[in-house]
């Protein structure tokens, strides 16, 4: 749920409650005000009526006249009464309205009056607004209010979230697209809103710091690998010199051979680390038209001998294909995938290499992996094969990431299948 929706929800709920409460409150208060007004005018009417009666001195038979009056008048009734105490009382009664032909509420003032020395009960009534009509009217007004309120709030909310939050969403989308290893600074835009500017500055600082650390680390790996080359060269050269010694026993000769194999492994590891960091540092950016068929056939020719020695049967289906890419990277990628296949196929196994529609695929026979998801991770290796540096497939992945190639691994029909789709 968006932030503005949360605040909108509370606002809407509050106004809804207010509006609903206001219905009975306004009904009650309007009713009270009306009653008061009506009561006042009833009192006034009654006083005026009595005033008029006093002036009608010429009437001889007052009782008859009053009776006639009582019969004729619609809202004034006067009847002789036994009670002698003077009092006024107001009440609301429901009467049949003969004009509108329906029951209607009336406000009625009953008072005991003395006319010409005789007591009478004077009743004056006045029609009131129908309760139902009143509720309906108020209800309609309030519903219109609710609709306008909700609509207005929603509209304001929408235009606010579009305008006010634009810089925020911009920052979010730029953050989502930001990649530390793409070697770009995180650019911030001035927004005129303090909170957003603070946020942008903080993110800018954070990413810049991370980028610097990352760059330093990349540089460090490359420098460290370079620096290791010389001691490795010294080590190797000392072994070569030591080997010439005529006084070597068989066991020391064997030890030297083992040392040399280890030195070679170190130097291969170092070479691969260096290659990885060079790819990372984008030192292979020149692109050219690469012939996938020729490149693949070259690599196959180089490893053919080794494949033959291990009695691996190679089944190749190499079709023509070209792609615009860095030639070195393509060679490294194909070489590493083929090396991987050769290394992990046991004697007598088979390797299938296919190039078709700009897709390179190599499949080799072998047992399924215990952890196929992590196959492209660095130093992830099959423990049985210590000769491997554990970096070959990591380099493949790095190249695919850099060039946005789709790389895929699956195990089917007893074959490990690696494929890379080149573009453009």
């Amino acid at each position, binding site marked *: 749920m968006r932030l503005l929706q949360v605040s909108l929800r509370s606002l809407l709920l509050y106004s809804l409650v207010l509006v609903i409460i206001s219905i009975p409150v306004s009904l009650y208060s309007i009713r009270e005000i009306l009653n008061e007004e009506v009561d006042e005018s009833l009192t006034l009417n009654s006083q005026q009526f009595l005033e008029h009666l006093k002036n009608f001195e010429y009437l001889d038979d007052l009782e008859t006249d009053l009776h006639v009056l009582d019969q004729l008048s619609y809202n004034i009734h006067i009847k002789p009464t036994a009670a002698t105490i003077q009092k006024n009382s107001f009440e609301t009664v429901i009467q049949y309205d003969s004009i509108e032909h329906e029951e209607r509420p009336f406000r009625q003032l009953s008072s005991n009056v003395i006319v010409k020395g005789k007591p009478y009960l004077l009743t004056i009534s006045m029609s009131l607004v129908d309760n139902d009509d009143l509720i309906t009217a108020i209800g309609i007004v309030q519903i219109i209010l609710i609709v306008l309120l909700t609509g207005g709030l929603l509209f304001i909310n929408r235009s606010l979230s579009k305008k006010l939050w634009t810089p925020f969403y911009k920052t979010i989308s730029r953050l989502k697209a930001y990649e530390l290893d793409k070697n770009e600074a995180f650019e911030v835009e001035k927004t005129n809103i303090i909170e957003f500017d603070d946020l942008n500055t903080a993110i800018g600082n954070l990413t810049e710091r991370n980028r610097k650390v990352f760059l330093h680390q990349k540089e460090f790996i490359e420098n460290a690998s*370079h*620096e290791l*080359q*010389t001691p*490795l*060269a*010294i*080590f*190797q*050269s*000392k*072994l*070569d*010199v030591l*080997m*010439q010694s005529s006084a*070597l026993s*068989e066991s020391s*000769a*064997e030890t*030297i*051979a083992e040392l*040399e*194999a280890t*030195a*070679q492994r170190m*130097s*291969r590891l170092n*070479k691969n680390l*260096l290659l990885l960091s*060079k790819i990372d540092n984008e*030192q292979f950016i020149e692109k050219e038209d690469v012939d996938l068929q020729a490149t693949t056939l070259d690599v196959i020719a*180089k*490893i053919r*001998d*080794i494949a033959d*020695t*291990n009695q691996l049967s190679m089944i190749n289906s190499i079709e023509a294909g070209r792609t615009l890419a860095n030639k*070195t990277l393509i060679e490294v990628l194909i*070489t590493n995938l083929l*090396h991987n296949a*050769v*290394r992990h196929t046991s004697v007598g196994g088979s390797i299938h290499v296919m190039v078709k529609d700009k897709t390179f695929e190599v499949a080799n026979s072998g047992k399924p992996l215990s952890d196929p998801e992590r196959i492209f991770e660095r130093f992830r290796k099959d423990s049985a094969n210590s*000769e*491997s*540096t554990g970096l070959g497939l990591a380099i493949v992945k790095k190249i695919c990431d850099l060039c946005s190639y789709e790389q895929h691994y699956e195990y089917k029909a007893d074959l490990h299948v690696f494929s890379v789709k080149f573009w453009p």
Partner: protein
Amino acid sequence: MKILIIEDEKELVKSMAQYLRQESYVCEIAYTAHEANEKVFLFEYDCILLDINLPDGNGLKILEKLKDNNKTDGVIIITAKNSLDDKVRGLNLGADDYLAKPFFLPELVARVSAVIRRKRFDGNTKITFQEITVDLLGKTVHAHDQAVDLTRKEYDLLVFLIANKNRVVSKNAIAEHLSGDDAELLDKFDFIYTHIKNLKKKLSEAGAIDYIQTVYGLGYKFTA
């Protein structure tokens, strides 16, 4: 034959010189670009081993000066930076070969002898070891004037062994020389053994003496 080693790592220089001297090369040493500049212009060398990263300058500058002065010394660039740019620049500047650290000394010797052969014996493309003659141009081998039919790998192996004659060459060095980066895939014992066995067989069939000695656990030695 005179060789100048321009390299600031004293221990590496020591091993290189020691190894090269065994093969009757005369080695001179320069630890800095300054020393190197002096020596290069005072003397003639058959081959200069040039490290690019020197404490007081870039080795490529020395190479540039050499070529500007029409010096014909053979130059092999040695560098810790295995970068394609350096390689292309060095070779464009007129270097004869390029070797990345770390390297096997037998590999260095093979490169040095190839460069010297190209520089010194113009026209003479043959190397001879007792009754075996290798024609480097035609890539053919004869023993007692009888042609020996070798595969590409066997031929490379023979040339490599002759260049390092009288020295123990490890299986790792041979594998690296024959297969380059693909060497890591090799089960060295099988692969090298097969090639050595075939080479021995073919040479002895042609009437040559078996000069390839097996040094147990280590490698081979080509010696008369």
